[in-house]
């Protein structure tokens, strides 16, 4: 090993805490990249493996002449398999009497269907000899504690029919148990899926007066060849056109399938993080590396001068200091890659366990490992480049000089301020010590500020997301949805039943609601949603205008979720077509748009629903309770009334939404922790460098009788000045970053309007100040350990 290499290695051990801070930042950045990106890819791979194994449909066609559609679709190139089935929603009652919205899906009793197969997790598959035997989807089974031989009832033909659970199953269609794309946050106990013999599903479906002709299967599922799947959109469009010719109401590609769309949206968060986190941390690491190495080069100027005077080439010196950055980057990235691999596996398993996915694929990907290493090395090299170049440009004559303090006296803002406002000259010297400190190395000061800003961005993004999600929930459940419960009735919601429900003690108000699945069409664009019919003077729903105000439900025309303005390309006053599930069409005028956090619906008055479909009737009721009533008692009282077959508790929905955010809160906590660590390490690096660089003057002041406590106060004041200057831009950028990050999650299903409480800004700023005070402690302790004689003699020459 050459003496130069030995110097390099031993130099790394000089002031190791600063370099360790850099290594920690790189490691965190790379680990978060690895963890989030591999978690995303693990989950994606797991889902895809499940889709392959269980032949998850590439396209689902709802309504229309299913047998005819299936026959024609089977002849199209790229279609591997086609199947038909019957799917129907009906109230479901559990053994304890609780009711929920049930969905029955027909399966062949003789064996698995060719498409959308199920994984039998306990018990056995359907048996032709057991007509009343059904399979419970795993989420329902978990929530209702169903197992083999449990009993459930479904509402068929006006009565409750008991069924026996033969087994519990997982389905690729219900990895996330979303009832529809508009209902992606189902509350436990409000929705459940049963896989039943096809004949039973058809019995549940009809015939009903409104759909008297429909007694056969009502869905076609299509599975593509692998080659066709690679370019699915073209085939999707072709099959959609074909299906619509046969009266299909809705065509759902795999990407839009409710469970898949929800999970894709969720894991998209990991993908976003895989970019955002590393960018923040590696930028911070870069700043810290720059600051630490610049200080080292300044400290080593005389030695670098000696080396150059002795014949070392510029590139040797350049390489010497560049290697320091590279080694920090390498050490950080190796640690980060290892941490990332461990974290990715853990995150994937936790996530999959929380969701209840039957298959987990966790693998170590060479591309992620190499990417992580490359990120760390590039961050180290790039940030070391400027100091290393500066080192290589140190003239050999530096070896002849003692330490010359850098001076920028007479220039800059402060100097001008002093000239313009003579009174400032009366400020005590201590004030100038504090004010001038940051102007000595403007670039380093700038980087310290960037460190403060980055830390605030990370903290505020985490905290701001929390605030925004809470505000979004409050907006949805306190402002938009005003009912405490929604009831499903087995009869039209006429005056008699509404009066009866209104008479239940604790009920403040009752209103009818009609809910019909529809597909909206405008030109070639379509959108599947629900048409909700309410009284024009409804008190159960507030229609929030996109401009921030509220508006009433119009007597004529439809209010559309604001996402449809873009998705369908329509504006107020335009005509929009809609198609009911049975294929019957209608036209409406767009009366305006509503801005709602969850879902994108179409709202019309009840009279309009009846005008569109004479046979339509309200079979739902919205109920608001008197303040302070016991929700559980109300559930018992209302579900015992005649005609009430299912009950959905708004508070339960809200709790479900908050539970859904449980993982998110953990994630926010981790982000806050990382934000604090980032702030600490960046500020530690810069502040300890500031103190180290000024050891001579500080020692001189101490030698002159200035107390250590007073010096510590001056240094603290200077550091606080630096942090304070960074706070305002940090808070502003933090808000923008939160907005940008959340907007990545905005879809037609969920919209977040960035809403950060003023207190959050204050607490975030305070958190950074506290972290800064902690970060300067090692530097202040070093002040106390200064050997005055040695410092003054050796450094000043």
């Amino acid at each position, binding site marked *: 090993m*050459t003496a130069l290499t030995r110097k390099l290695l031993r130099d790394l051990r000089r002031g190791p805490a600063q370099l360790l801070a850099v290594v920690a930042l790189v490691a965190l950045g790379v680990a978060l990249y690895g963890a989030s990106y591999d978690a995303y890819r693990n989950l994606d791979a797991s889902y895809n493996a499940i889709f392959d194994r269980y032949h998850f449909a590439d396209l689902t066609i709802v309504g229309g002449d299913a047998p005819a559609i299936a026959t024609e679709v089977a002849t199209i190139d790229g279609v591997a398999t086609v199947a038909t089935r019957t799917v129907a929603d009906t109230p479901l009652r559990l053994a304890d009497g609780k009711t929920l919205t049930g969905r029955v899906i027909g399966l062949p009793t003789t064996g698995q269907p060719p498409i959308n197969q199920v994984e039998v997790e306990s018990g056995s598959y359907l048996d032709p000899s057991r007509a009343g035997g059904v399979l419970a989807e795993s989420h329902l089974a978990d929530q209702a504690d169903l197992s083999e031989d449990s009993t459930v009832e479904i509402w068929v033909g006006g009565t409750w029919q008991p069924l026996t659970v033969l087994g519990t199953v997982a389905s690729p269609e219900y990895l996330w148990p979303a009832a529809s794309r508009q209902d992606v946050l189902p509350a436990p106990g409000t929705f459940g899926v049963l896989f039943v013999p096809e004949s039973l599903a058809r019995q549940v479906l009809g015939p009903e007066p409104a759909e008297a002709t429909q007694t056969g299967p009502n869905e076609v599922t299509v599975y593509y060849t692998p080659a066709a799947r690679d370019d699915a959109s073209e085939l999707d469009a072709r099959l959609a056109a074909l299906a619509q010719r046969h009266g299909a109401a809705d065509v759902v590609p795999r990407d839009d399938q409710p469970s898949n769309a929800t999970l894709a949206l969720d894991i998209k968060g990991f993908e976003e993080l895989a970019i955002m986190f590393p960018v923040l941390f590696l930028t911070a690491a870069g700043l810290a590396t720059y600051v630490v190495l610049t200080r080292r080069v300044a400290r080593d100027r005389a030695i670098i001068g*000696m080396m*150059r005077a*002795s*014949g070392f080439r510029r590139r040797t010196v350049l390489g010497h200091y560049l290697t320091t950055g590279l080694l920090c980057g390498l050490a950080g990235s190796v640690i980060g890659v290892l941490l990332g691999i461990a974290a990715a596996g853990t995150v994937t398993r936790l996530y999959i366990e929380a969701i209840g996915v039957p298959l987990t694929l966790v693998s170590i990907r060479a591309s992620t490992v190499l990417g992580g290493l490359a990120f760390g090395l590039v961050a180290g090299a790039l940030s070391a480049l400027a100091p290393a170049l500066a080192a290589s440009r140190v003239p050999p004559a530096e070896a002849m000089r003692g330490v010359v303090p850098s001076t920028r006296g007479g220039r800059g803002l402060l100097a001008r301020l002093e000239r313009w406002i003579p009174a400032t000259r009366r400020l005590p010297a201590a004030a100038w010590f504090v004010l001038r400190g940051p102007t000595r190395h403007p670039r380093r000061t700038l980087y310290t500020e960037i460190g403060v800003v980055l830390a605030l961005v990370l903290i505020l993004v985490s905290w701001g997301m929390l605030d925004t999600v809470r505000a979004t929930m409050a907006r949805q459940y306190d402002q938009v949805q005003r009912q405490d419960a929604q009831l499903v009735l087995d009869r039209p919601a006429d005056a008699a039943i509404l009066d009866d429900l209104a008479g239940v003690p604790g009920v403040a108000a009752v209103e009818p609601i009609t809910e019909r699945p529809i597909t909206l069409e405008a030109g070639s664009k379509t959108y599947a949603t629900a048409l909700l019919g309410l009284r024009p003077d409804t008190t159960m729903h507030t229609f929030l205008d996109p401009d921030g105000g509220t508006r009433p439900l119009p007597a004529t025309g439809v209010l559309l979720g604001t996402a449809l303005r873009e998705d369908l390309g329509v504006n107020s006053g335009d005509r929009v077509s809609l198609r009911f599930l049975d294929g019957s069409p209608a036209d409406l005028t767009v009366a305006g748009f509503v801005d709602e956090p969850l879902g994108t619906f179409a709202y019309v008055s009840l009279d309009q629903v009846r005008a569109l479909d004479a046979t339509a009737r309200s079979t739902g009721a919205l109920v608001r309770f008197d303040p302070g009533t016991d929700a559980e008692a109300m559930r018992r009282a209302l579900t015992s009334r005649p005609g009430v077959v299912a009950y959905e508790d708004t508070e339960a929905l809200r709790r479900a939404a908050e539970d859904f955010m449980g993982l998110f809160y953990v994630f926010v906590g981790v982000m806050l922790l990382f934000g604090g660590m980032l702030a600490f390490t960046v500020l530690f690096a810069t502040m300890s460098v500031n103190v180290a660089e000024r050891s001579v003057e500080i020692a001189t002041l101490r030698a002159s009788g200035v107390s250590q406590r007073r010096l510590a106060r001056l240094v603290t004041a200077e550091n606080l000045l630096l942090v304070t200057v960074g706070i305002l831009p940090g808070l502003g950028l933090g808000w923008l970053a939160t907005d940008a990050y959340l907007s990545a999650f905005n879809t037609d299903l969920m919209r977040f309007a960035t809403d950060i409480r003023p207190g959050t800004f204050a607490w975030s700023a305070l958190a950074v100040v506290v972290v800064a005070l902690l970060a300067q402690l090692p530097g202040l302790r070093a002040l106390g350990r200064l050997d005055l004689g040695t410092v003054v003699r050796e450094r000043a020459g």
Partner: protein
Amino acid sequence: MKPSARPAQTDASTAGDDAAPAVELLGAAKTYGTGHAEVHALRGVDLTVLPGEMVVLLGPSGSGKTTLLNLVGGIEPPTTGRVVVGGREITDFDEKARTTYRRGTVGFVFQFFNLVPTLTALENVRLVAELTGRGDRERAMHALEDVGLADRADHFPAQLSGGEQQRVAIARAIAKDPPLLLCDEPTGALDLETGLGVLRTLQRLNRAGRTLLVVTHNAAIAAIAHRVVRMRSGEIVTVTTTDTPGDADEVTW
């Protein structure tokens, strides 16, 4: 000792008039800055140093002695004039050529030693010697023996006295066996005793045949030189020569 003073314009030496010069400065001038900020650090200096000679450059701060040393050491080029070392003109060397020149031809001893604090005495010596392929342990130890520090080879700079540190710096300079040793205030940061030790070492190296150019403002050191060049305001004022330089042991200040 028989000193004699003569004007700086004549530059013969008593150390051997018939030998080829080790160093020649011909009208060498150095100007820093431009316009109002122009500083004439060296104003057209002529100086010849013969092989084996020990020349001491004396003068107050700002007299140009360190600038002269920098020109000879190839640290910076003259603004005008010529610099010839060992028969090679280095005046117009570019940065790369000057680096190669410094590597092979000169050894530097600095006022503040400039030892690498994270390397032992031996490693400090090897650091520079490795540049010329003379960085093996034996040679480096030999250099340390030359300065009387073989027993301190494994000590770090912080474990050495100031005099010892300067002697390590001298060992570092001579380990690559340069024909010319340039010393910038070698005793400037040392007390009397340790300073004398360093002078003894330098004299011994000179007596072994090495050419030395020593910058100092300590007039006492002039006693051990073959020639003493006094400078002021960038010019050579006088050159004093002696046939028999004094012994370092007899120097005091």
